[in-house]
């Protein structure tokens, strides 16, 4: 695997020299008619790293994720993913006519799909809802099921498209913890698309800010997890990220 060559916009060099690259994007461009949503974007995702991709709406973050998920056939440029990819979407997108366990095993090509599904559901704390219809789940339960469906595939790259944005604040905190737990247990590379700066600060190794179709800012967070919101490193980084997003930080104007 190629070692990482820092791009022109990289602000901080990441420390690990021998990195295995799971996904690599070179000069990716995506246009919708006249509008250029991704503009010659470069990105490398190392094995096991947790990346948060921040950006205002319309900055192209979901477009990048869709390209990585193989859902966009019209993006131009280089894109290669080593290994398997799984996606959890903003809306859980469970298949409503399949019970929860059947949603988990859908398309799962392993010898014992049922056992794997049970294990995955246990891991996200949803064992007792295995036989339920998706439409009877709460928002948090549905999102857990969606995570279980992604994780049961043991992906090398897990793509999370704002999966927590529709959850209430309390549920979101528990799901954050769950995601970290699952990530440390399975160690997939994670690309989390979000517009929530705090979420990015709490979860990610590396935070990227997407603007006008390019990566406009990159920060590496080395603080130990679990992180506290008021950690001094995070506080200063929050200000930096917010201004990179074009938002003036709280308290100043």
């Amino acid at each position: 695997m190629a070692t990482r060559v820092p791009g022109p916009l990289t602000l901080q060099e990441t420390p690990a020299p021998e990195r295995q690259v799971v996904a690599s994007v070179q000069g990716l461009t995506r246009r919708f008619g006249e509008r250029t949503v991704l503009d010659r974007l470069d990105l490398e995702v190392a094995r096991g790293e947790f990346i948060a991709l921040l950006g205002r709406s319309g900055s192209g973050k979901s477009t990048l994720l869709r390209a990585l998920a193989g859902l966009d056939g019209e993006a131009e440029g280089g894109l290669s993913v080593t290994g398997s990819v799984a996606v959890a979407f903003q809306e859980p997108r469970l298949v409503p006519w399949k019970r929860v366990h059947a949603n988990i095993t859908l398309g799962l090509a392993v010898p014992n799909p049922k056992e794997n599904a049970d294990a995955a559901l246990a891991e996200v704390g949803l064992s007792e809802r295995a036989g339920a219809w998706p439409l009877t789940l709460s928002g948090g339960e549905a999102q857990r099921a969606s995570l279980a469906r992604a994780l049961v595939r043991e992906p090398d790259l897990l793509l999370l498209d704002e999966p927590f944005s529709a959850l209430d604040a309390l549920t979101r905190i528990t799901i954050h913890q769950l995601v970290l737990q699952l990530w440390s247990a399975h160690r997939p590379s994670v690309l989390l698309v979000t517009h929530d700066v705090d979420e990015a600060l709490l979860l990610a190794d590396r935070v990227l800010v997407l603007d006008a179709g390019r990566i406009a800012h990159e920060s590496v967070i080395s603080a130990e997890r679990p992180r506290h919101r008021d950690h001094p490193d995070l506080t200063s980084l929050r200000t930096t990220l917010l201004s990179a997003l074009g938002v003036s930080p709280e308290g100043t104007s």
Partner: protein
Amino acid sequence: MAVLELETPVQAETRPAPRAQRRRLGGKAWQRWISPLALVVAWQVASSTGLLPTRLLAAPSTIAATAVELIQTGTLPTAIAVSLQRVLIGFAAGALSGVGLALISGLSRKGENAVDPIMQMLRALPFFGLIPLFILWFGIGETPKVLLVALAVSFPLYLNTFAGIRGVDGKLAEVARTLGLGRAQLIRHIVLPGALPQTLVGLRQSLGVAWLALIVAEQVNANAGLGYMINDAREFLRTDVIVVGLLVYSALGLLTDALVRLLERRALTWRREFLAR
């Protein structure tokens, strides 16, 4: 009149439980029986006093007696068997072609271009107007009757199944792709189950028109069946037999409708539980 009122109890029994309960508790279902019963009583009084001549409409009591007699002599069961057979064969043929064509045009653009324009053109034809042609082509035997039913059945099923397939949530198709499902699996796990609710709507519509088509076909030329029984009764001014025939038609229609609703409840549990919450 009495025919229309029959619908109320059937619906109350086969609808999802909570709704029926709500109606029973809130609406006091028996109150809905007052006006139809009053109507039947008024009808009986009018007939008994000679206000309503039997050659126009027989008395309810006469109709009931005739019904018992027709059942005992075997006339009615035989007629029902003949008509039911026509509907079943016609329905099976129509459903098969309607759903089959919907699959062809729903699942591929090429199929749509080939099938849909023809179906849309044929749909515009008044199919009862085809009867003279059918008689010329197929004579006056069973074939034109069964074909008319088949034709009537195929369109609602085609249109609804096609719309159902095309209406499947594109987001779920994306999920299927990210889960590594191939085209055949996509159709099996996402497209067909997703189209099922709409197909069942088509099924109910098509069963409704199936009976209608049968009634029309049997009026034209028949030597057996319910339509024949009714036409024969007209010759002898037997309004009681005519009304019995009509009641049987509507009862059979309600019965098949109830069957589809049962099927819906079985096949769409994932929706019903949601609705019942």
